[in-house]
């Protein structure tokens, strides 16, 4: 696991209590957003389950025994969703996709990579893509990848081929 650069707020106990002052709260949520994205990027985590989130060190600092309560986590996730960095998986909003790159960003990164490496007009499997070393999209969740590729499809730059056995994409 990559080294996480914890911000100073992570050791600041009130960081784990949602602040009543709206302005302070905004600062707090901004800090939370970048912390969650940093954490997910370093750990290649693409899905957060609100019910289990307190098991993850990001929302639970054992050293100072502070936990962000579930309503706080939900608030952070909704903030992330507002900037296109998260999306609920279901209506109950218990499981969330986390996009440390927004889908648009990811889509253009993948397309640029495909162009640069001569993958246009060929079919790549999802497995191939996620196992490409040292790319923004290496090790990414296949569901997130699919969402990003769907974005490309909308722009007419790719065609997603979904089958029960194997998923692939053709770049244009």
């Amino acid at each position: 696991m990559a080294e996480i650069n914890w911000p100073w707020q992570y050791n600041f106990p009130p960081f784990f209590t949602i602040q009543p002052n709206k302005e302070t709260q905004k600062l707090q949520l901004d800090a939370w957003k970048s912390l969650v994205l940093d954490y997910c990027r370093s750990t290649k985590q693409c899905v957060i389950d609100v019910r289990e989130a307190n098991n993850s060190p990001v929302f639970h600092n054992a050293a100072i025994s502070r936990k962000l309560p579930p309503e706080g986590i939900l608030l952070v996730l909704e903030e992330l969703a507002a900037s296109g960095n998260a999306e609920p998986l279901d209506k109950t909003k218990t499981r969330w996709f986390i996009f440390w790159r927004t889908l648009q960003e990811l889509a253009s990164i993948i397309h640029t990579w495909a162009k640069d490496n001569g993958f246009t007009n060929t079919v790549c499997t999802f497995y191939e893509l996620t196992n490409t070393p040292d790319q923004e999209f290496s090790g990414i969740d296949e569901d997130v990848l699919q969402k990003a590729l769907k974005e490309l499809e909308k722009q007419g730059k790719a065609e997603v081929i979904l089958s029960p056995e194997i998923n692939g994409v053709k770049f244009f």
Partner: protein
Amino acid sequence: MLLYLHNCISLSDFFLYGMFKLYCCYPLQSALLFQNLIMRRKAGVGAIQKQKLQQEKYQAKTSTLQENQIEQLSKQLEVFRTNLEEFASKHKAEIKKNSEFRKQFQAMCASIGVDPLASKKGFWSVLGIGDFYYELSVQIIEVCLATNHKNGGLISLDELRNRLIKARGQSKHHQEISKDDLICAAQKLKVLGNGFTVIPIGRGDYMVQSVPGELSMEQTAVLTLLSKLGGASISESQVVDNLKWEKARATKALKNMVQDGLAWVDTQSDEPTYWLPSLFFECVSDGVSSAGS
């Protein structure tokens, strides 16, 4: 009868003694007074004219005396001024570089009622002593604005100093900024309105507030207590115990600090605890130590 006479003598003795004393201290005035006393008995045009003449003479004498005094005083001032000027320009470099020297010089100027900062005009401007503080003031504003989002506009003098030293570069003469310099420069910012205030919080510690508005008495008292206890957090019961306040007063003061964005509340301990980022070590050193190392 005898007693009466005795009284008379002692009274007139006393009077004479008084006149003598008066004469010793103010020869001219008392001589005139004495003459007046005697002459009051006389009447007539001649006497009045004589009196008038004497008065005129007296007046002329006073004005010459006064002129002399003024002349002497201005001469002395001139000497003093040139000396001070000479001293200041001779030690200009020293004043700029050495914080201890600067402090002493400031104190000296203050005791004789000269403010080298306030006088941008005149010979002080040649020295550029004011400029040193103007420069510092601007840098203080910069640091305050840059850290505003973290500490709600309240910064300890120590943090301010560390950040300033970092911002001013590594050369030795940049590093020599004392806390007195900072207080001096920060206080100059008062002319910009109540946006910048230096708040003493006891034990020789200060905080600089850089948001419009003023800290209430309560908030200042809580800050002072925080600095006394050491640390970045305080609870309601701590305030009640230490300042002997009513619970409601403590609650209100702390809630106000949260409302003003100065404090953050933590509800995950036994009782709500109020934290000040401006005193929290990791926040204070954030961006200072990492880049410094």
